[in-house]
């Protein structure tokens, strides 16, 4: 996306802030943190999006010292995503990851709160909102671990898959929104609009990720919306015995049905709802980013549909 180039300076400033803080920690924590960040920012394609989110958001708020506030909140986002990623990876791969990373994660979490408290000051409502955000996040993670781990049986919870709940895992992005709302003393409507944007964007992201990562998710027993639909189809049509679907069955189910297109359609619907929620606030960059995402989701639907139909034609002939 061309406009990422407009933010080279901001990206470098924020990365240098975070790097210099982590470098100042004691060894080996500093080495571990720097090595994690270096690999992470390359491997995560959306890294710059998360980093720049506070800059893009700032266009919609009437506050003093926007550059400084955006930079601090962008720092917060980087610490937030590092904190979440480390926790998630340790939960998913406990035997493979250096557990000292937990210390890095703790420090990152502390930095998130330090930044937001320095910006907002002592404010009971803000603290309450922060607590609610954390509770929602923890509940979503817990729900996922308890109800969406596949052990050969599709449960009722899985069949009624709640992708909106799973979107709450992106909680670190809620904190910059909260911070801007409190700094501006925004009204209730604006608060609802921005949170609605966040929920819709999160849901759209989640569904798209579920499609891109379906193989890894299935192998690790992590149920997602398209996987539930695929297994349900295979079992209902008696194409596999209960609990016996393998990766190739799932791949075939995605060719035989329109499950992937449907999932992408839902993802697109939420992306458009995110655009709608903030359209009255003139957020040029965020809007451009969402529009670009919509185009990419739409073209993925078309591409996949055509590919699927041509494969089916080939095989059936």
């Amino acid at each position, binding site marked *: 996306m061309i406009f990422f180039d407009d933010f080279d300076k901001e990206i470098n400033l924020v990365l240098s802030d975070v790097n210099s803080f982590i470098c100042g920690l004691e060894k080996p924590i500093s080495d571990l943190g720097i090595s994690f960040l270096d690999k992470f920012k390359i491997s995560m394609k959306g890294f710059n999006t998360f980093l720049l989110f506070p800059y893009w958001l700032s266009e919609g708020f009437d506050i003093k010292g926007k550059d400084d506030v955006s930079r601090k909140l962008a720092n917060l986002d980087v610490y937030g995503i590092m904190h979440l990623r480390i926790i998630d990876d340790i939960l998913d791969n406990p035997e*493979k990851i250096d557990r000292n990373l937990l210390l890095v994660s703790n420090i990152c979490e502390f930095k998130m709160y330090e930044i937001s408290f320095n910006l907002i000051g002592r404010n009971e409502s803000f603290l309450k909102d922060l607590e609610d955000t954390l509770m929602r996040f923890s509940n979503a993670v817990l729900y996922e671990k308890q109800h969406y781990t596949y052990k050969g049986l599709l449960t009722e919870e899985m069949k009624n898959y709640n992708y909106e709940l799973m979107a709450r895992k992106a909680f670190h992005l809620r904190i910059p929104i909260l911070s801007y709302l409190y700094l501006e003393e925004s009204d209730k409507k604006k608060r609802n609009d921005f949170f609605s944007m966040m929920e819709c964007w999160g849901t759209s992201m989640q569904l798209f990720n579920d499609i891109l990562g379906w193989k890894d998710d299935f192998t690790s027993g992590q149920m997602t919306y398209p996987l539930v639909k695929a297994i349900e189809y295979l079992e209902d049509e008696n*194409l596999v015995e209960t609990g016996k679907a393998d990766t190739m069955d799932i791949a075939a189910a995605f060719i035989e049905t329109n499950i992937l297109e449907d999932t992408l359609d839902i993802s697109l619907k939420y992306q458009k709802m995110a655009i709608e929620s903030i359209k009255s606030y003139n957020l040029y960059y965020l809007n451009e980013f969402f529009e670009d995402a919509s185009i990419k989701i739409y073209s993925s639907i078309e591409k996949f549909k055509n590919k699927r139909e041509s494969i089916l034609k*080939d095989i059936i002939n």
Partner: protein
Amino acid sequence: MDKTTHELIKEYTASKEATAFVNLKTPDLWIEAKPALWIYE
């Protein structure tokens, strides 16, 4: 879909190097990072 066709589609899928063609090319959107890069092998 009948079971025979399902098995045919599975065979076809296997012959095309596993499940590669059921995957979408990753666009530069927001993709979650997979941990593989920092896992100790």
